[in-house]
């Protein structure tokens, strides 16, 4: 290990080490940031949900979007996989179906950043109990 020689180095080091615990920091206040839940059951994975999930994880970091990507089980929309449920802070969740890389890009740019709805929304047909 190298010595840390001054406060500026310590601060830089702190920033560089963020990704070690970033996931935990974000999960600590999940309701304050956008939550992206990707349905990763058998049908989801078969339709490419894994690539979509990786795409979200990489892109939100590249584009500096404060969001948490969570892997969940089957959401019940097997006909429309891959499905992604997005919850903006304080708003009701919205489910997008048939998500492709292009559409994921659109979702990040329009819905996650500005709350603008894009195509592919699946109307909510259930109530979740906490």
């Amino acid at each position: 290990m190298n010595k840390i020689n001054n406060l500026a180095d310590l601060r830089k080091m702190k920033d560089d080490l963020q990704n070690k615990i970033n996931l935990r920091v974000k999960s600590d206040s999940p309701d304050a940031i956008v939550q992206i839940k990707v349905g990763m059951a058998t049908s989801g994975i078969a339709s490419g949900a894994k690539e979509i999930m990786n795409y979200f994880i990489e892109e939100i970091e590249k584009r500096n979007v404060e969001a948490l990507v969570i892997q969940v089980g089957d959401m019940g929309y097997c006909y429309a996989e891959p499905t992604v449920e997005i919850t903006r802070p304080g708003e009701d969740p919205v489910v997008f179906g048939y998500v492709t890389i292009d559409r994921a890009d659109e979702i990040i740019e329009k819905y996650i950043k500005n709350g603008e709805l894009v195509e592919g929304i699946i109307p909510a047909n259930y109530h979740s109990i906490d």
Partner: protein
Amino acid sequence: MNKYKMHLLVCGGTGCKASQSNQIVEQLNAELESHGLEDEAKVVVTGCFGFCEQGPIVKVIPDNTFYTQVKPEDAKEIIEEHIIKGRKVHRLLYVDPTNKESVSDSKHMGFYQKQIRIALRNCGFLDPEDIDESIARDAYQALGKALMEMTPQEVIDVIKKSGLRGRGGGGFPTGLKWEIAAKQASDQKYVVCNADEGDPGAFMDRSVLEGDPHTVLEAMAICGYTMGADKGLIYIRAEYPLAIHRLKVAIKQAMEYGLLGKDILGTGFNFDIELRYGAGAFVCGEETALLHSMEGHRGEPTVKPPFPAESGYLGKPSNVNNVETFASVPVILLKGADWFASIGSEKSKGTKVFALAGKINNVGLIEVPMGITLREVIYEIGGGIKDGKKFKAVQTGGPSGGCLTEKHLDTPIDFDNLIAAGSMMGSGGMIVMDEDDCMVSIAKFFLEFTVEESCGKCSPCRIGNKRLHEILTKITEGKGTMEDLELLKNLSGVIKDTSLCGLGQTSPNPVLSTLANFWDEYVEHVIDKKCRAGKCTALKKYIIDAEACVGCTACARVCPVNAISGERKMPHEINQDICIKCGACYDKCKFSAIFIK
């Protein structure tokens, strides 16, 4: 560096380690590897989550799923169901004791909702043996800020303004303590961390040291900077091997990064920290006794003044603070005095860690804002009394504290209110009692502890507590008189007034507070020779109900002292003079014909 999508946090506190959390970590890693997921999910061993009742704990990030009472063999299911398929393992979720519903994530658990974690902020969050994780979470930033951007007096002013008071029990303003130590002129000064946690059932200091050692090291260095000390000593009991191990690892890593040692962060400030082991004597939590023990002398207190700030370790000015106090310092410097002072009550700022124990559903470690009520702590965070029993009392402050009753349930908890109610904050033990607890026996139990732990130096404590204990024993044996109750009161007053140190000055508290709050129960023991909780064996009376007894002779045969007589098929009788109240007949009777009076 790897981009993990999930973190599996496994509690590595002493409690969970004792229930095989090490094996859980091994199994989780093995399962991840066998599924080729070692780059997707990472297992992190953290400090205590506080929810010790339901340990070992495994928390899955990012969805905050909180698995309780996990066994090593559950690892396979967690990985295959949760990590691979995204389905929670329902049988391992926490079940709310009040409505019996399982709660999937920790954000919705009553246990965590009312807590504000400052001293415990990194416990159950970071890997305590990896300094990089701590640095990512602001460790040593406050030290850097103090050294580079603040004068020692400015640091002291911030701590003073924050209203931080000593968390070890004394409640002395920390900033003022630092200022006094800073004003002493000496060639050598010492910063001492009191990690001699002695209250039965209290384990907050251990948990902080096990879960977030760097915070304490950093705060000690900050304190050293304010008072001009280049040496820090941690007095820790040898019976905390895991905390000692984590501290050693942390000190080594901090030295390697140059965050401790010579010329810290290029500022020319030097600070070293060493450990000193205690043998676990309760009195060594008292600062003068602690210092003597560190010097290699007997752990006995001496009269103050001189205060340690004037003449402490090896006769040099020393500042002694408790672990939890230190743990609050770095955050205060980073977030500001006003932020800290905005939490808590008027005269007690910030938060306090309590160890919940006894007849309560959620036994564990909690950190709550000062000024919260006992009701909130017991019913909302603690999940209420075990087995639906009735709340009777709560003992705060350990053996030196007092019992509070139902009428205190809505009193805001802070240093001054607890003292006004006849108890004290102490180090933050909270033992909850229900209707099955006998208050005289409870007082006797705590006295037993103080009698044992009294160092014997001053007579009021050595002899007085012994006598108190004898009188209490007499009462629980049904031989007490009303004069004994008066004597208890007077003697307690004398011990409090004349003892040398905090141990003796507070040891009669359990007696005084139970006398004040449960006078009726004492009188019952003395006059009616009755213990309503059925705890005092000598006062129990087993009686056979002649109408219910069928004369099966089962009780007579099981009685070890042949106290039961009677003809076959005729009602039996217990000779009270011979009966040793073992309860064997009571357990044996199939007709519920034996009752306890």
